[in-house]
């Protein structure tokens, strides 16, 4: 028989928060700094929140800031659907609803200690990875070599330019960037993100490799990594799916047996062997 549960918290009830800062990063990406009106979020890199706009709906968004960021948390939201179009109208001082943080499949912050990390990011895939990247940079002594590979479609879509510049200047990390389509003003690498992988092949062995990008990117990145005979346990993929509830009930994010909102959004590649729908 079912028993009365003493915890009667409503898992669908958003908590109010205030937009502290809002600004466009490029044509489609909006940066938000958010401070909860009540207790602040206790999150780890890789977790996501449901952003709620009363009257419009909710959208799942991975947290872009590291837990070491102390003034609320940050999100970067692409203008692409119903909710996110409305989110783009937000200004500092506006109220929004937040549920979360959600997701038990997160970045391996502990497991990576003392090891090399090679981040592979495609476009807006930089955003979820940034939580882990900044966490590592804020605890730099705990980790081995840190390499960040970033591929963007074109120069005008790049964002977090100050941060990218500071990464490229640091001597304790290696930051390599490329754009799919170059132009006259772009002096750097041209080509998709996989073209950067051979440049760091010496560091791949036994490194932790977190990957995040658009769905199409994973196949190509994994194919490129194939040749280096890396243990699949070391590769982590941040997977996107449609989500409604965020709490393992509504069924939309299911990949085979697994719920992305519960078991993910970050998955170990070796665990995807029994999830043919994943990639």
């Amino acid at each position, binding site marked *: *028989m*079912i028993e*009365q*549960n003493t*915890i*009667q*918290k*409503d*898992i*669908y*009830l*958003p908590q*109010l928060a205030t937009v502290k800062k809002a600004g466009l990063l490029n044509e489609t990406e909006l940066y938000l700094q958010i401070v909860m009106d009540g207790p602040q979020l206790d999150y780890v890199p890789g977790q996501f929140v449901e952003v*709620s706009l*009363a*009257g*419009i*709906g*909710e*959208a799942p968004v991975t947290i872009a800031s590291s837990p070491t960021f102390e003034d609320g948390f940050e999100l970067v939201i*692409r203008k*692409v*659907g*119903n909710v*996110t179009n409305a989110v783009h109208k937000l200004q500092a001082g506006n*109220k929004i*609803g937040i549920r979360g943080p959600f997701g038990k499949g997160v970045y391996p912050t502990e497991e990576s200690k003392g090891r090399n990390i090679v981040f592979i990011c495609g476009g807006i895939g930089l955003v979820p990875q940034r939580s882990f990247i900044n966490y590592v940079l804020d605890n730099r002594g705990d980790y081995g070599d840190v390499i960040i590979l970033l591929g963007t479609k074109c120069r005008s879509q790049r964002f977090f330019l100050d941060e990218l510049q500071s990464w490229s200047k640091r001597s304790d990390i290696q930051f390599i960037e490329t754009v799919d389509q170059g132009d006259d003003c772009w002096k750097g690498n041209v080509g998709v993100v996989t073209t950067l992988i051979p440049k760091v092949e010496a560091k791949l062995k036994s490194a932790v490799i977190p990957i995040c990008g*658009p*769905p199409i990117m994973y196949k190509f990145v994994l194919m490129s990594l194939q040749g280096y005979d890396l243990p699949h346990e070391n590769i982590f993929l941040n997977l*996107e*799916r*449609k989500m*409604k*509830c965020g*709490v*393992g*009930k*509504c*069924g*939309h994010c*299911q*990949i*085979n*047996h697994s719920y992305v909102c*519960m078991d993910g959004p970050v998955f170990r590649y070796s665990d995807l062997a029994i999830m*043919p*729908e994943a990639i």
Partner: protein
Amino acid sequence: MTVKKINKDAFKQFVDGLIKQQKVMGPCAQGDRFEFEQLQSSGQLRLDYDVTLRPPNRKYFLPPVETLLTYEVKGGYQSVYDDAEFILLGIHPYDLAALNQMDQIFSQDNYDSHYMKRRLNATIIACDVVMPSKDVFAASMGTATAKNGFDVLLTDIGDSYIMETGSPKGEKLLEKAKGAVDATAGDLEERQKIWKANQSRLNNHKLKCDCSYLPELLEGAYTHPVWEEKAKTCFSCGSCNQVCPTCYCFNVQDDVNWDFAKGKRQRAWDGCLLDGFTKVAGEHEFRKKREDRFRHRLYRKGKYVPEKLGSQTPACVGCGRCVHACLPDIANPVNIYNRLVDDLGLK
């Protein structure tokens, strides 16, 4: 546990007494089919029904549309709960099995207070099947009779019902049944016969393996041609999802008042067979092919959900509603699982 016997006239009075005190939902005739409705009098009650159009467990505990919360567009959110007490009278053992599964799903991991509030306010009077439906195969799925999960279980033995309690709530309810007498050994024997008979009567499509073998069977069936073959004629209409007592996927949508100042957030039934179920903003759809969606449903029923719940019985309870609802006649889980047994063999 108490086992009583009550004759059908006294039972009618008992039901009429309950209707005066609280909402009682029971199976009623609707044309030549049946559906659970709120009873106005015991005369409407048709405990001899074969199967209802919609599964009562979903209709009352995860309704087609439900308000989760209200909000002020510029202010805060407020949870909305439906806390009316009611009796669900006459749910069949296969739907009861689905209800018990849903209880597990909505109370585990993240406690769904909306579902559970309704659930805890309800009294469940289950009823053994009198008239098997054309497509029922509950016996193949181990749900032809009920062992637990009810407050009271009724069995029609001709001129009377045997009433067995399964919880303190049921005990309390039974106290109200005037004219109920202790069941005799002969009555229990009579009931045992009905249970035994229902194990073969409720099996109009026979599964060729034990239902606990389904997860293992599906383990090696992912690339079997049956998915594509069947899905060729699938309309992606989601009828199989809509009538299924174990389907619980839902969508969440906002509904704003005309003044754009206040509104509500609602959840509504959704279905994994529908095109767009996995489509994200930006138009990427993860299960775009019909056969992938078709396979997903059969894997959820036979493997994903039972494994998630650690259950020996599948998330198909054998009600047969999808068999009836599917226009191209491809939904019958038994046909598909049997085809896999034929082709892949039993280990």
